[in-house]
Each structure stands twice: as structure tokens, then as C-alpha cells.
């Protein structure tokens, strides 16, 4: 089939997981054993095959994009929004990530969730998530993307709170949803502004019309900033990042799929999708850069002090997302997307590896109580090691290339920016090797009986490990004999990937690369010395000295938000009801009422206080009035 034909059946890609979700949800009390898991995995796998065929058939030089019109969604004069899907380089890239890595995580979940009573519900939600995420990336206009945007938020909420009997998890779920909604406020207003300005929300049309907007106008700055607010919520950047670490309450496959590989990258996707608008807003680009950098530095420091295996990875995710925003802020769109792609592989791998460890230890998540697992869980160890090497940026692994692209772009902007991103990379390397050494090296410090996970879980690990190694090839830079394939491919997405011209000399590139690699090696050597032979447990956060405690307690940001927003919100709710409502609004009404009553004493005889009498009088009055007029004519 050629590309056009495949585009016509592209609606199947989101429809299949939706179908799976509905079927499994409807039959959730009837399906036995692994049926739901197989069905859900089959749905995303078939979707992956279709996406892959479309990708192979896609010849950007002949046809850069295809718009698939399903039906008119909201159509009134002056506001036409169609249910459209857009198939181009950008959406195909994301579709492959979502369905490909998604399928592996579905498969892994069959093993991981095997003993859970509500495993069928779990797979229904996971498939529903896949549907929503695919709508997000395939949407032909902003509003269809928004369907997916809100849909993934809902699934994230349901899956974070999947084990609903634990109050802390429910709180985490609610927190995630509300913080995302704060971001959505920005997104939604931006959409209204775009619709009003251009009379359309279609990506192609908006990008065409954006050429009429003058560079840096207040309008474009406002719109892009508001879009970025949406991205901040979904991709967990400052100041809205605190929901993501808490989201680790969800089952580990959820953390891998939603809170590492796909949903949290939606913010980056959105900015790339609207790059034509952002290219016109230099102020916004600065803001994106600063927010990304601050987030990535702050959360990287927090990651160093976490003792929960998933929390380390969560802060690492936020930090890596921050790096992607740094790339976006520099206009290096393809570098950001490249890192999204490699990160999807190695972070999904790391989370699933962590899940395998947790599974092996019967639910233990504290790395201080692990150690020495490399002899017991061999596959998990080897794959986790590969993931760690990839994220740390060891030459040859995928993370090295994608991170290097960001570091180079940063250096080109300013050496200090390079220094900061390099610092983040070194911190990343440090906490990841700390995690690796404490978990798999040294001697076992826990009590549970450890065992390796079943192959339904280890096979996805192996596949992802291969991906984590080779994904760098996708965008191999020129100095390694590559052609930056991914960059050129993404440039064909009709809305354009603008302004990426790296013009560093080859010598500078080699020098910077050498510096990075050298420092990383030092960090690993240091971490090795510190953590491998560790026998004592780290102290609790509260026992640490002042500065370390500040970082270990996550800069007290959660406490700050509770004090500043959560508590006053509830307080005001109570006060509004008790004072404003009961005393002022109702008080005024009652005062009017009682004054009238006093006057009304004059006609006391009629006021029997009997409502039924009044009503009867009213009915009789109305009927009598009508009768009179009838006769009167």
C-alpha cells in the first residue's frame, strides 16, 4: 500500500486501542487470566504495525504530510473545527514511539500486573491512554490535540490512583490532575486566541497564516507563553513539576509509559508542533530556555538524595525534560525530538528495570535495602546497566548522541549555558551510577527473597536495551560520519523545524566531547568508590546537615505550595461560605425580608403563613384572571 492509502486507514491507529479499552472495560468482570493483557497488547501492536508501514511508505520528498478528514466536529458560523488527523514526519515519529514502546510496556505489564485483582481494569486504562496519546500526536488541529491532551491527563489520574485504597496515592492522582489543569488554562486560552486571530485551528493553516504575524508582537508572545504554560503542566516543569515525583504512586509500567516515555513529552511535542509560532516569539524562547534550565538543575540535585528507586528516576525524568526544553529554547527542535526519542527508550527501560527489581524483591523500593542483585537478576542487571550507560551519555550509546546535540547547541549560545547543561549531565551520571551501584553491586542489604522476573517481563527489557544502544544512529552527527537523518526527516513536517544551524568547528566539537566524556568518567569513578562497597545505610533526610537537608527535602517546594496555595484555598472556601454567603449575601436578603415583614404586619390577616393557601390563591388568581379576560371579550 502506498502512503496515501495508509493515511486513509491511519484512524485505525488510535481506534484500535480505543476499541480494546472499551471491550476490556465492558467485559472486565468476565475476562479471565491474561486475556485482557493479550488483547490490549495486540491492539497497540497492530497499531504499531500500521504506523510502521505508514512510516516506511512515507516519502517526504513526494508528499510531506497527509491530512485525514474524519468528520466535522464543531461547526458553527465563524468556528469550524474538524476531526482531522495529520500524518507527517513529526506525528509518525511520535506514533512509532507511542505504539512501539507502548506495546512493549503492555507486554511487560502482563507479567507485572499478573497477581492484581483489577488487572483487566488496568489494561482497559492503559489502552485508553494509548488512544488518547495517539489522538494528541496525530491531531490535525490544536483542538484534536487537546482531546488527547486532556484524555492522557484523565488516564494518568486514573492510573496514578490505581490502587485507590491508599489515601496518599489518591492525593497524588488528584494533585497531578489539578496541576495539569492549571497548565490547561494556558493552553485553552491560547487556543481561543489562535482561533479568534486566524479563524482556524488547523496546524497547516495556522502555520501558513503565522507569516502575517510580526516578529515579537505582544500577541504572539502571549500566545506562545500560554501554550508554554500548557507544556509546563504536562511536562512537569517549574513551577508545576511537583506532581510527577508523586505520580510514582502508580504501578511501575504506568511510570514507564506515561510518566517517562510518552505523556510527559507532550509539552515538547506541542512546542515542536507550533514551532512556526515560537520562532516568532524571542521572549518566549528565552523563557522556555530559562524554565527548562532551572528545572533541570534543581531536579537533578534532588535526584542525588532520593532513596526510592522510582523517585530517583522520576526526578531524572523531570531533569531530562528540562534539558529538552533548553534545546527548544535554543531553537534546536530536532535535538529536542531526538532526545525525546532516545529518552523514551532508555527511561522506559530503566523504569521497567526498576519494576523488575521491585517485583523481584516483593515490593521493596528503597535502594538502601537493596544491593548485590547483579548475581541474582542477571537480565535485569545487564539491561539496567545499558540503560544507565545510555542516560549517562557514554559514547556509543544513544543518550550520548542526543545529549551531545543539546550540549553543542548550548555551547553555541553561550559557554556558561554549556557549563550548566554539562553540570546537569554530570549530576545525572552521578545519581544514576549511585542508583546502579547501590542496587546491583556490593552485598544484599535487604531481607526479601529475590528472584528474576518471568520472560514476559525480561523480553521487553532486552528489546528496549537494544533500542537504547542503537537509537543514536537515527540522528548520527556528521563528525561520526552520519547525516543527521532524523533532523532532516523532521524538517519535512509541513509546519517546519526552523533555524537549526550548528556552526561549530570540528575541532571545538571534538574538544567539548572529550571534556564531557572525561568528566563523566571521573564521576563514575568517584561514585564507584563511594557506593559499591557501601554497607551502612544513608541517613534519613531530616538527619542531614542543613544544605543537604534542603535538597533532600526537595527544596521544600511541596511544603511551600501546601502553605501558599492548598491550605488558603480550603480556608477561603470555608470562609466564603460562612461569612460572605451566610452573613453578607443571605444577610442582605433576610434583612430586606424582615423589614418587609414588619410593614406587612398591617395586612396580617391575609398572611396566615400558610404556603398552601398562598399557592392556592395564586392558582385561583391566574385562572380567574384568564376567565375574566375570556368573558370580557
Amino acid at each position: 500500500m502506498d502512503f496515501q492509502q495508509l493515511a486513509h486507514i491511519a484512524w485505525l491507529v488510535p481506534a484500535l486501542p480505543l476499541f480494546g479499552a472499551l471491550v476490556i472495560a465492558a467485559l472486565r468482570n468476565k475476562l479471565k487470566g491474561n486475556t485482557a493483557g493479550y488483547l490490549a497488547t495486540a491492539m497497540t501492536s497492530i497499531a504499531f504495525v500500521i504506523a510502521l508501514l505508514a512510516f516506511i511508505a512515507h516519502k517526504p520528498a513526494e508528499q510531506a504530510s497527509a491530512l485525514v478528514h474524519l468528520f466535522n466536529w464543531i461547526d458553527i458560523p465563524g468556528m469550524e473545527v474538524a476531526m482531522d488527523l495529520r500524518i507527517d514526519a513529526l506525528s509518525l515519529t511520535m506514533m512509532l514511539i507511542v505504539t512501539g514502546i507502548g506495546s512493549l510496556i503492555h507486554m511487560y505489564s502482563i507479567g507485572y500486573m499478573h497477581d492484581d485483582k483489577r488487572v483487566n481494569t488496568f489494561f482497559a486504562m492503559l489502552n485508553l491512554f494509548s488512544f488518547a496519546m495517539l489522538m494528541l500526536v496525530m491531531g490535525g488541529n490544536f483542538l484534536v490535540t487537546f482531546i488527547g491532551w486532556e484524555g492522557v491527563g484523565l488516564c494518568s489520574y486514573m492510573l496514578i490512583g490505581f490502587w485507590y485504597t491508599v489515601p496518599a496515592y489518591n492525593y497524588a492522582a488528584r494533585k497531578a490532575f489539578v496541576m495539569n489543569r492549571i497548565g490547561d488554562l494556558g493552553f485553552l486560552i491560547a487556543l481561543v486566541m489562535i482561533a479568534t486571530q486566524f479563524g482556524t485551528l488547523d496546524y497547516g493553516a495556522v502555520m501558513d497564516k503565522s507569516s502575517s504575524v510580526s516578529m515579537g508582537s505582544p500577541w504572539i508572545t502571549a500566545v506562545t507563553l500560554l501554550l508554554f504554560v500548557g507544556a509546563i503542566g504536562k511536562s512537569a516543569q517549574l513551577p508545576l513539576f511537583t506532581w510527577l515525583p508523586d505520580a510514582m504512586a502508580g504501578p511501575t509500567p504506568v511510570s514507564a509509559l506515561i510518566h517517562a516515555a510518552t505523556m510527559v513529552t507532550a509539552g515538547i511535542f506541542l512546542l515542536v508542533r507550533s514551532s512556526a509560532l515560537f520562532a516568532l516569539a524571542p521572549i518566549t524562547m528565552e523563557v522556555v530556555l530559562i524554565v527548562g534550565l532551572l528545572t533541570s538543575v534543581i531536579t537533578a540535585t534532588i535526584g542525588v538524595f532520593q532513596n526510592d528507586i522510582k523517585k530517583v528516576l522520576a526526578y531524572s525524568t523531570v531533569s531530562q525534560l528540562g534539558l529538552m526544553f533548553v534545546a527548544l529554547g535554543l531553537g534546536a527542535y530536532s535535538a529536542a525530538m531526538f532526545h525525546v526519542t532516545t529518552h523514551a527508550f532508555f527511561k522506559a527501560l530503566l523504569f521497567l528495570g526498576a519494576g523488575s527489581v521491585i517485583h523481584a524483591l516483593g515490593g521493596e523500593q528503597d535502594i538502601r535495602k537493596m544491593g548485590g542483585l547483579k548475581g541474582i537478576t542477571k537480565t535485569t542487571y545487564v539491561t539496567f546497566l545499558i540503560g544507565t550507560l545510555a542516560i549517562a551519555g557514554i559514547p556509543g550509546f544513544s543518550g550520548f548522541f542526543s545529549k551531545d546535540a543539546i550540549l553543542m547547541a548550548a555551547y553555541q549560545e553561550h559557554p556558561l549555558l554549556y557549563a550548566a547543561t554539562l553540570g546537569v549531565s554530570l549530576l545525572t551520571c552521578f545519581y544514576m551510577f549511585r542508583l546502579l551501584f547501590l542496587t546491583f553491586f556490593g552485598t544484599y542489604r535487604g531481607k526479601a527473597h529475590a528472584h528474576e522476573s518471568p520472560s514476559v517481563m525480561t523480553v521487553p527489557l532486552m528489546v528496549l536495551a537494544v533500542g537504547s544502544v542503537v537509537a543514536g544512529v537515527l540522528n548520527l552527527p556528521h563528525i561520526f560520519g552520519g547525516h543527521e537523518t532524523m533532523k532532516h526527516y523532521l524538517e519535512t513536517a509541513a509546519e517546519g523545524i526552523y533555524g537549526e544551524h550548528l556552526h561549530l568547528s570540528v575541532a571545538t566539537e571534538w574538544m567539548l566531547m572529550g571534556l564531557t566524556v572525561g568528566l563523566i568518567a571521573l564521576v563514575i569513578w568517584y561514585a564507584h568508590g563511594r557506593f559499591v562497597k557501601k554497607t551502612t545505610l544513608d541517613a534519613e533526610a531530616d538527619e542531614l546537615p542543613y544544605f543537604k537537608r534542603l535538597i533532600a527535602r526537595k527544596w521544600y517546594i511541596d511544603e511551600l505550595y501546601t502553605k501558599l496555595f492548598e491550605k488558603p484555598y480550603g480556608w477561603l472556601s470555608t470562609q466564603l461560605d460562612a461569612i460572605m454567603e451566610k452573613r453578607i449575601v443571605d444577610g442582605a436578603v433576610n434583612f430586606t425580608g424582615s423589614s418587609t415583614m414588619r410593614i406587612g404586619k398591617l395586612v396580617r390577616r391575609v398572611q396566615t403563613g400558610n404556603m398552601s393557601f398562598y399557592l392556592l390563591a395564586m392558582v385561583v388568581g391566574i385562572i380567574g384572571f384568564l376567565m375574566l379576560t375570556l368573558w370580557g371579550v
Partner: protein
Amino acid sequence: MMLLTLALVLLPMLAGIALLVARPHAQAKSIALLTSVIGLGLAVALYAGYDATNGSVIAFQHDWAPAIGLRMVFGYDGISLLMVLLTAIVFPFIIGAGWKKPLSEPALVNGLILLTQSALFGVFLAQNAFLFYVFYELSLVPVFFLLLRWGGEGRRAITMKFFIYTVLGGLTLLFGLVYSYLQLPAPRNADFATLQKVVIAPDVQLWLFWVLFLGFAIKMPMFPLHSWQPDTYTMAPIQGTMILGGVMLKMGIYGVVRFVLPIVPAGVAHWRDVVIVLSLIGCLYAAWIAFRQNDLKRLVAWSSLSHVGLMCAALFAANTAGITGALYQTLAHAILVVALLYLVGGLHERLGTAQLDAMGGLKARMPRLAALFLLVMIGSVALPLTQGFVGEWLMFNGLFEVSPWWTFLGVISIILGAVYMLFAYQRSMLGEAHKAGDLADADEIDHWVLVPLIAATFILGVYPQPVLDLLQAPVEQLLTLIK
């Protein structure tokens, strides 16, 4: 068409009267349900026979009291049809809400409900201002009886307050209508077609606006005229609250569209920002207060207040997107309120209370009911692909044309709405089960009521076009009248 139109008004009226007179308590709910389902069939037939490009249709007219301009004119346009459909859709479910555990003397309850429905059909089908007024007032009478007889704690005092509010609003409306009518050149009548063309001096419109609007503002209610609402909604029997919140408040929206916008456009232009700001304050204020409510029914009352605030604001944006969005939302809101209140009623039946602090952990004991609650909640926070989102999206666009700040205020409600709904869901459904013991999970009847309502929410969220098409012609016509 004539037969269908008259049957819509007469059928529930006659059935209602028959129930009140014969009092067949055992068969009452079946008779009422049958009547309301036939009513739904009639409404659908009316819709099927209507050509959306046609404008308004006069189905029946008869001189009644020409001396005062009162003519018996029934007819409809797309807006009327939407309201008729809305009424026809929710009433079977309102009657269904009394199926499992009927109130005492079911013949009277169902009779009164049918009488209300008849009057509401009258309100939405009347094409004469005074005829409208007659039905508008009549519709409240059975509701008052429902509140007085079957209401909860404090029903006398609360109903009295509601009654006073309503009478006040009704009287000013009557005065406003009579005044406007008298401005017409003789020979005159109060048919909509005639009355909408009345020319009123701009300075008169400044005060006439409030005279006409006050009653509708109370009915919705608009901040700060709402203080009857939370108490009344909480005290009323669940079916009464459904009628009030599901359908009757839409009379306020409908009234604004029929009278306020066309008769006093200069007044609207002058007071527009005041009304929008008050409405938006109400929208946020109510959502904020809803957060800490302990009574789930009261929380739904505040939530309704919040939603209607946004609708009223968008209506006064007085442009295509705003009016269409607000009208579309009336249907979404009706379905939502009935579904939410049904859940509240169901919980009350099972637990003997609707207090949230007496709940918690119910999902573990009633997983099906919790799942239904979750779906209704998704509609309440207006996620895309639910009806509510279509309405909100249009309303935000409508408000933006007036001022970006109004959109900003309106959009804040999507955060506050999520805050109180999710918190309520968590407090009632999630967590460890408080006590052991059996609670009946959602049964067949619960599914019969909730599944169609939820299905409608999603179907009209994915494909709202049939309803939007219904509104297009009359909204454009209304806008040309205003200009």
C-alpha cells in the same frame, strides 16, 4: 405538527390531573413513566419533522383575549425545540429516579411532576409573551407543592424564601412585558414575532432591562441573587431538585434569549459588562465554595450555580459563539445535573445520608456505582469528547470577543471545577472502606437511568452537530434583531 405540539402540552397535563384525582398509587410511576416516554417520542417526532433552515414554525394559533394581546399561539424554532427536547429527555429519568424508593403517595408526586412537565412544554412552545408568562408561573405551582410536602428539614422557611424570590421576579417580569407590549403601535398583540420588533427608547431600555431580567436572573440564579438556591436544592426531594436544576433554571436562559436580548438590546449593550462580571464572579465563587461542602447534594447545588454562571456570562457576550455555546450547554447541564443528582439520591438511599464525611472507600464496596460516578464526573469537569466541552469551548470563544479577560476568568473555572469534583470523588469513593457490610452495588435500574445519560454526554460530545445545526438559524436571526 399542530397535533404534536398540543399533545406535548396536553398529554402530561391530563395524565397529571388524572393521577391527582384518581390516585392510583400502585400504578402511578408506571403511568408517569409511560406518559413521559410518549412525550419524548412526540418531541423527537417534532424534531424529525423540523427543517432547521426554516426558522420558526407556528403550529397552532387561536385568539384568546385579544384585548390584552394574549393569544393562544404555539410554535417553535430551533431554540424552542432544543428546550422541548431537553425537557422531554430528562423527565423520564426524573421519574425513574423515584422508581426504587418512591416518596409517600406516589400518585401525587408523579402527578405533580407531570403537571410541571406540561407547564414547561408550554413555556418552551408558547409563541406569545403572555401565554409564556402564564405557563412560566404555572410551572412553579406543582414544584412548590413538591417542596412543601416532600421536602427535607426546614422546608417551610426555605420554600417561603424561594417563593418570595420567585414572586418578586415574576411580578417585575409581568410588569416589563406589559410595559413593552404597550409600546407597540395598535392594533397589537404580544406574539413573539410582533413583540420582538418593538422599538423602545434607549434611555427607557436602561431600566427596563433590569425589570425584564430580574426574574430570569433569579431563576438561573445569577450572583448575588442566588441565596435561595443552595438551601432549596438541598432541602428539596431529589426529583424536585432535578426539575429545578435540570430544567427550570433553563427557563431563565431561555427567557433572556426570548425577551431580554431582542426587546432591550440597548439595555443589554449598556449593562452587558456588569452582568458578565457578576456571572463570572458567581461562577468562580460558587466553584470555590463547592470545594468544602460536606453535603454532596449541596455540593451539586453549588456546582450547578457555577456552571450556570458561565452560561449566563456567555449569553450576554451576545455573539454567535457565546449564545450558541450557552444554549448548547443547557442540554449538557440538564443531563449532567440529573445524572449527578441521581447518584446523590442513590448514595442517600444506601447510606441514609449524603454527607461526605460519612462516606469514603465506597468504591471498594460498590465498584460499579463508583465507575458510573467517575464517568459522570468526567462530564462534569467537561473533558473533551463530552458535551460540556463543546459548550465551554464555544462560550470561551464568545466571551473572548467581548474581552480576553472574561475568557481568562471563565477558564479558571475549569481548574476550580476539577478541584471540587475530584475532591468529592476522592472523599466519597476512594480510600479504605470505612466499615464492612453489604451495600448494594449499582443495580439494573441504576444502569437504566445512568447509562443512557452518560451515553448521551459522550455521543453529543463527539458529534454535537445535530444540536448546533438546530441553533444556527435562530441564533443568527436573534443577532440581526439585536443589531
